Each structure stands twice: as C-alpha cells, then as structure tokens.
C-alpha cells in the first residue's frame, strides 16, 4: 500500500510536469530566462534517484520474505 502511494505521488509529479509542458509552453517554460527548465531538470534527477531507491527497497523486502 505504501509503495502504491509513493508510486502514485511520483506519477502525479510527472503528470504535472507534462501538463505544464503542454499547456503553458511559452509563458512558463520560456519565462524568466528558462529557469523552469532548470527546475524540471532538478525534478527529474530527484525523482529518478527516488525511484531507484524505491526499487531497491522492494528488492530488499523480497529478500526479507525469502529469509522467513
């Protein structure tokens, strides 16, 4: 259940990003010297590392189940 929640949160962030990219292209992404591209890049790196850790935790949980 917890994993599902994390996964849905991550997906939500992705969707928001995508919506921003589609809807307000010129006004947001290009505004303020494209600073939103920088924020998007930081978000991608953060989410990527987070997903990797979630996957690692899932594998460790499987291992714990095997030990029992």
């Amino acid at each position, binding site marked *: 259940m917890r994993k599902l929640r994390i996964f849905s949160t991550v997906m939500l962030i992705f969707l928001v990003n995508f919506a921003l990219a589609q809807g307000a292209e010129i006004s947001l992404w290009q505004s303020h*010297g*494209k600073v939103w591209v920088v924020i998007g*890049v930081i978000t*991608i790196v953060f989410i990527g590392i987070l997903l990797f850790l979630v996957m*690692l935790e899932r594998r460790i949980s499987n291992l714990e189940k095997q030990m029992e």
Partner: protein
Amino acid sequence: MKGIWWKMTGAVLVLYMIVGGLYFPLSTGIIDVQPIRLETGQQFELRITTYNTRLLDGGEVEVWLYDTLGHILQADLVHIDDNHRLRAEGIIPSQLKDGSNVRFLNMLVYQEGEGFSILPNALSVVHVVDSPHIAGTDWLATMPNKKPSQKITFPFRNILAETIRNTYFHVTLWFALMFIMLGSAIESTRFLLNRNPLHDSRAAALASVGFLFGILGLLTGALWARHTWGAYWSWDIKQNMTAIALLIYGAYFILRASVENKGDQGRLGAVYNLFAFVMLIPLLYIIPRMADSLHPGAGGNPGLGGEDLDNNMRMFFYPGIIGMTLLGYWIASLVARYNTLKALIASKLYSRQNSLEGDIKS
C-alpha cells in the same frame, strides 16, 4: 552507519551545489535588439531589451557598437523605458572601413557600477553608395575600458540564459558517471585478479548506479534540448553517442542476468564491463568532439566553448562533481550489500535444500 564521513561529505557537497547553483543571479545580458539592419549615414533608434539589469535604479548607461576592424561607435542619446528596456539613438558614419560592403557589429551596454553586457553580432551595417556625410560623425578610434561588475554572478549566454545552471544538475551527472564507471571497471579488474565475488557484486552495483545517472543525464538533456533546440531528440551526435554508450552498459546487465552459473556470470560480466568502459571514453568524450554538435562546450558552437565555465561556476561545479560521485558510491554501496546478501541467502537456501534432499535420500 559504515563510512559515515564520506557519505555525509557527499551529501553536504551536493546540498552546497544545489543551493549555490540556484542562489547566485546571472550577470546582465542583452536579449534583443531591433532593428537588426542599419545603413551607412542612417540616423538610428535601437530598441534594446536587456536581462537582469537595473537600468532605472543603477548608474549612467552607455550603448556601444563595435567590431574587430575598428568600427567603434557610441550612441549619442540613451532613453531608459524601464529596468529592462532602453532606446539608443545615433548616426552611423557614411563610410565603412577597408571598403567593406557589410559589417556585423557587436553591441555593448555599460552601466556604471553594474558592469557591462555584450551581444555578439547584434546588427549589420550595410554600405550604401553616396550616403550623405554628416559633419562630426565618424568611427571612434578606441573604446575606453569598461569596469566589470563586482558582484558574484554566473555568466549570461544568449542561447542558455538561466539553463547555464544545468552545468550543476546535468553535467555533474555525466562527470560522476565517468568516475562511477571507472570504479566499476576497477572492481571488475580486481575480481578478475582474485575471483572474490565481493568485487563482482560491487562492480555490478556501481554500473547500475552509473546507468541510472546516464538515464537521468539523457532525460534531463532531452528536456533542456526541447526548450533550447526545439525537440527532445534531435539526433545530435552527443545524444546519439551517449545513447549508444548506455545501450552497451544495458547489455552488461542483460548478460549478467542471462548467465545462471555464478562463476561464469562474474567472469563474463567483468570482461564485458571492461570492454564497456573502454567504449565509454570515445563515445562520451572523443567522437562528439570530432563532429559538429549543438551541445555547449562541444565543437561547432563558437562563442560557447570554454567561456561557459567561469571561476564563479567552478566554485560550485567541482565540489558538485565530487558530491554527486560520492552520492553515487553511497547508493552503489547499498546495492552491493544487497547483491552480497542475496548471493549469501541463495547459497544458504541451496545448501539447506541439498541437505534436506540428502536426508530424504538416506
């Protein structure tokens, strides 16, 4: 926690990079000039849009046009509309030097106390035959030296603007990837020398984290490219070669997963990992520089290479590389411990199963 010092050092350096990389403003810049074509003998009014300037609040503003041939001109009148917009008036002299027909002039906007901004090839001046000579207008001999701003800023580049900060969040990933893959290759070598499975699991863990960094590097690069080059993937040589390098590493994981026997898995994986690392260097650093690339810092992008990184950026860039590398090693150490535990548990289960079967048989 094992090795808490280097792990915390990595975390602090990454935090330092994120905060510093976002905190300091860009230096001032010129975004737009209209019109971009002038004629000799023409009285002009240029409408200039600047970036990050405080035209109203700062000191006196000067506008200069110049090139390397010695066409130097200062605008006679400067009107300031707001903090980012100004108009410059003046007269272009009736002759171009060296009998040229057209010259591209750079523009320099200088504000006292705030430093200067330059727009290379801001506009062209076309020579018009029989343009009237207006008394008192001629190219100036020299341009006085301008004092740069004393503030700590990151350089302004017209193509990049704020995305120059991606030097911290995208470029450091690739540098860290290089060091992580180097560590993976070293572990593979050690495994080949002493056949200790610990080194094999470390090599695989480091390669998986390096692979993660590579994927993130490609994704962040694609997002940036979408808003700089116009498409997520433009088949630029830098994008293509890094994708190939990642595919080669992808095959490493497939190879390891497809070999059942533990001993063969380690040996084949280690040999292939060395091959992948040897391929990584030309694919990331040599081939993209031999052809034209749109990527900043690569060939075919004049005016960008080398100048993108100034000393203010280095202050955060180099610690950032070390921080990201340490962070990668931290994550990899977790994966390696998982790999080792998994192998241990598998062998325990295997031996228990064997002994159970032995009991049944006897």
